[in-house]
C-alpha cells in the first residue's frame, strides 16, 4: 500500500509518518504543499507539526494550500485521509471534519503518553483494534482541546463519528484522563462517510517497540485492511 504524506513549511512529523508506514511494510512518498496532485496514493496522511508557524490559527493557512485542494477532491472521491495532530487541525479548518481544536484547558503544551478508548471499532481507521483494547499513544500539542457546538456533538454521537476518546488505563472516560479539556474527552473523529479521520495523539510515534508502544499500528493496519478490502485505488 502506498501512502502520500503531505509536507507543509514547518511540518515536523512527516518523516515520522514515512518511517512508521515503512516499518509496517508499506511505501510512502512526500507531497509538497505547493503540489496540485497527490500522485498514485492509496491513502493520504496529513502529518503533525506547526504548518505555516501556526500563524493566525493552527491549520488556518495550510488549508488554503494547493495540495489541500487535491486532498479535498481525493476525499470527495472516497479516498482515505488521516490527519494527525496538526493534520487534524488542518482537516477541521478545511471543513473536511467538523469542529475545531483550541488552546489546551490549562494553557500547557502536553507531551506525554495518553490512553485512548476506541469508541467505534467498525471504521476504516479502527477496525483492526482488538475489542476492549485501550491504546497507549503519545500526544504533543498545545492546541488540542476539541470543541464543537451542541448540535454538531449530537450529530457526531448519533452517527458514531467519535472514534477515540481519552480514558484512563482501565478504559474509563474520566476528567483526569482528559489532557486538554476536549468536550466528551474526544481525541479523534471521522466524517460522516468514514473516509476522513483526525486525531491529536500520534500513532506515528507509537508503531514500534523501540518507541515504547506499538498501539499506533492498529490505526495504520486498519487503513490498510480497509483499502485492500475495497480493492481499488481512489487516486486523485
Amino acid at each position: 500500500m502506498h501512502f502520500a504524506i503531505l509536507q507543509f513549511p514547518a511540518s515536523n512529523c512527516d518523516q515520522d509518518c514515512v518511517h512508521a508506514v515503512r516499518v509496517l511494510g508499506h511505501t510512502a512518498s512526500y507531497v509538497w504543499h505547493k503540489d496540485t496532485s497527490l500522485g498514485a496514493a492509496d491513502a493520504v496522511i496529513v502529518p503533525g507539526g506547526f504548518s505555516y508557524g501556526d500563524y493566525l490559527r493552527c491549520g488556518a493557512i495550510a488549508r488554503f494550500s494547493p495540495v489541500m485542494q487535491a486532498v479535498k477532491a481525493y476525499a470527495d472521491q472516497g479516498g482515505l485521509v488521516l490527519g494527525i495532530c496538526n493534520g487534524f487541525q488542518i482537516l477541521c479548518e478545511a471543513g473536511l471534519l467538523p469542529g475545531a481544536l483550541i488552546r489546551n484547558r490549562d494553557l500547557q503544551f502536553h507531551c506525554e503518553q495518553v490512553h485512548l478508548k476506541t469508541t467505534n471499532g467498525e471504521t476504516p481507521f479502527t477496525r483492526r483494534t482488538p475489542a476492549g483494547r485501550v491504546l497507549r499513544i503519545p500526544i504533543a500539542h498545545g492546541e488540542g482541546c476539541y470543541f464543537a457546538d451542541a448540535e454538531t456533538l449530537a450529530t457526531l454521537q448519533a452517527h458514531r463519528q467519535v472514534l477515540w476518546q481519552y480514558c484512563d488505563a482501565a478504559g474509563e472516560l474520566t476528567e483526569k484522563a482528559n489532557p486538554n479539556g476536549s468536550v466528551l474527552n474526544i481525541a479523534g473523529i471521522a466524517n460522516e462517510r468514514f473516509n476522513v479521520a483526525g486525531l491529536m495523539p500520534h500513532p506515528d510515534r507509537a508503531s514500534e517497540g523501540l518507541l515504547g508502544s506499538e498501539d499506533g499500528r492498529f490505526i495504520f493496519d486498519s487503513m490498510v485492511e480497509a483499502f485492500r478490502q475495497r480493492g481499488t485505488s481512489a487516486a486523485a
Partner: protein
Amino acid sequence: MKAKIVITPKKAVLDPQGKTVQNALEHMGYAGVTGVHVGKYLEIDLAAGTDRAAAEKALHEACHRFLSNPVIEDYRLEVVD
C-alpha cells in the same frame, strides 16, 4: 483607508487565556472584573480610493472564510479613513 478587525472567542467556547488574565487581575487587586476575553486584532491597510462598500463586503467574506473561524470565534469589522 484601513480595516480594523477584532476577533474574540465565542461565549460558549473555553477561554483559558481570558480566565488566567482575569485571575491575575484579581490577584493584583483590580476589583470588579467579571470577565476577560482574549482575542486578536488585525489592521489591514487598503489602497487609497478603495470603494468602502466593496471593501467591507470582501473583508466580511475573508473574515468568514479565513481570518476568523466561525466555529469558535466572533469578529467585528470596521473600515475607517
